[in-house]
């Protein structure tokens, strides 16, 4: 019965895939179809490819890409792409369980494997519907180091050029413009961080490893969620942490609830949003979100 259900799932997935590609906004024939598994890479592909490339991003808006579990329809849709751009750095843990065409897969962080950050002794915690999880293994928010992000854009551009050599010149021009934007932000972040070297900061979640390393941030992380009031034990632990790491700012993935932010203020800690932008933002794009992040960080460093 289970197998029949699975076969039915396969068949339905195929039919949905066909319907999706034939009726619902299918790209014109000959268009390079690129799918990315994390938003920053999808954004890079959109910038590099322009209108000549149809970029897909299959992860729902309310799902954090590292915790996405693709179903059979998602995998069949991925199989139909001409190019599948992965972030790598162990972000796509589902990859070992899905059958994908190796020749279409591009690990955009493969070029700096030696510079990936390995997280040891991570705490297992839970929040949201995803249940318990841990951030042990390899840190995956590589794009928060904008120099590494540039390398990932390079890898995406190279793969796209290989698939469409006739568009190489256009891709190169677009890639150069993108890398200029990333380099500008990179310089700004470096300048901001250089204003107060060693300034103690708190991270609400252990996802800022690459940001901290690249820009020399003195960052210690807790495991908090913006919309979930941490238990008392966490507040006690925070006070102990503040005793040895006197931070005045906590960096959040999203705006924390008023209750959390208010209680933090009482401890002398202000909240700052640095959105990692792993998923597609409701407004703007990767660059605009990063610009906002830079401005937020600038404000924190000036106070």
């Amino acid at each position, binding site marked *: 019965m*289970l*197998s*029949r259900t*699975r*076969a*039915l799932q*396969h*068949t339905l*997935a*195929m039919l949905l895939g066909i319907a999706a590609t034939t009726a619902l906004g299918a790209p014109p024939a000959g268009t390079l179809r690129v799918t990315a598994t994390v938003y920053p890479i999808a954004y890079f592909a959109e910038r590099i490819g322009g209108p000549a490339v149809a970029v897909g991003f299959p992860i729902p808006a309310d799902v954090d890409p590292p915790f996405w*579990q693709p179903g*059979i329809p998602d*995998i*069949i849709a991925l*199989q139909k792409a001409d190019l599948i751009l992965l972030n790598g750095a162990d972000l796509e*843990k589902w990859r*070992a*369980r*899905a*059958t*994908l*065409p*190796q*020749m*279409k897969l591009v690990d955009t962080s493969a070029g700096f494997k030696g510079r990936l950050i390995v997280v040891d002794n991570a705490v297992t915690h839970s929040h949201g519907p995803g249940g318990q999880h841990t951030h042990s293994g390899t840190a995956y928010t590589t794009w928060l180091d904008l120099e590494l992000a540039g390398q990932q854009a390079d890898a995406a551009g190279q793969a796209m050029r290989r698939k469409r050599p006739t568009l190489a010149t256009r891709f190169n021009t677009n890639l150069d413009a993108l890398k200029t934007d990333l380099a500008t932000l990179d310089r700004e972040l470096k300048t901001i961080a250089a204003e107060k070297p060693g300034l103690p900061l708190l991270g609400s979640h252990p996802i800022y490893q690459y940001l901290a390393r690249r820009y020399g941030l003195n960052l210690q992380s807790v495991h908090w969620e913006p919309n979930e009031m941490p238990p008392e034990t966490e507040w006690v632990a925070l006070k102990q942490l503040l005793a040895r790491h006197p931070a005045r700012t906590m960096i959040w993935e999203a705006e924390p609830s008023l209750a959390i932010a208010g209680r933090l203020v009482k401890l002398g800690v202000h909240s700052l949003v640095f959105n990692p932008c792993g998923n597609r933002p409701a407004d703007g794009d990767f660059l605009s979100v990063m610009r906002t992040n830079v401005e937020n960080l600038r404000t924190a460093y000036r106070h």
Partner: protein
Amino acid sequence: MRHDFYLAWRYLRHHRARSLILIASLGLLITLPLALHRILDAGEALMTARAASTPLLVGARGSALDLTLSALYFNAAHPPMIRMAEAERVAATGWAEALPIYSRFRVRGQPLVGVTLDYFDFRQLKPVAGAPLAMLGDCVLGAEAAAKLGLEPGDPLLTTPENLFDLAGIYPLKLHVAGILGRSHTPDDEAVFIDLQTAWVIEGLGHGHTAVADGGRMTPRIAAVPATNIQVDQTKLLTYTEITPENVGSFHFHGDPATYPITAVIAVPPDQRATTLLRGRYLAPLNSVQIVDPAATTQSLLQNIFRVGALFDGVLLLVGIATLLIVALVFALSLRLRQREIDTIVLLGCSRLTVLRLAAAELVLIAIASSGLCLLLLALVRHQSMELVRHFVIP
């Protein structure tokens, strides 16, 4: 003339047994060399086409022929293994696309072949029923394999344990038939294809975790989930592994995938320059890996087969001459035995020429019947040529 044939026909019918023996002997005599050549031609076409469509093969150093037969026909019993890193090495050169193959297992007599999805594009294999591979534990069947195993999409297929007496061995994996491939008239028709990662689960390199009956503790084992297996689980005697939508999330691999085993890599360079450059990478005599040109290897195998074919031709020629002499002798002796009958015909007023015409008519009828038998047998051979090739030409 019509009467001659009528009389000859009546005579042959009267001596049925002798006539049939003559027809069968002559029929087989003509059929044998023609059928042999037909099978050799079909074998040559099959092997040449398969080899020509496979630019280069990378595998463990040793017999180039074994590597070719293992990667192209999946029929080697224990092909030597190389590491997945070799596929990555080929791809990293940028001179060729790399298609890893793992063809060590068999399932109910059919080859169980681990490939990546690119293999199906490369061989232009598409499912005519069901869907392509999508999840760990899926399999797609070649047309012939599906017919022989009597399976269709949605059916389960339990892999064959390697050794029944290996109590510490790997449990069979219950595969899910995702689709049936269209007939390609190649060895792919006989194969059961799985994703390389599924092959590594069978190998024991990947496993899932499941909550067993002792309070839901997660046990690192490849455990079967269905209710029917709970009793088995409690008694610590699992009979098979199954990857289900419920436990697929817990499946993972340990170690560096670059060290995982494969049996060959199909390298697909875009042009002759890339082919030459890639081959140059494997010239070192101490290299534990070799690169072979399947077309050249197959050609050398075919030359051997044709040498054997020429020997057969020679033997058949001698046997044919001997058989014709025996037939001539039988005919001459039969004429002697029929002397009284011939005398009667002459006494009835027929000339010696009429007697000769009667004998010739008998010979013509026997030749026609033998030719008919030969055509029938050749049609049969033509129909079964691929099967015969697989049994007799491709080892």
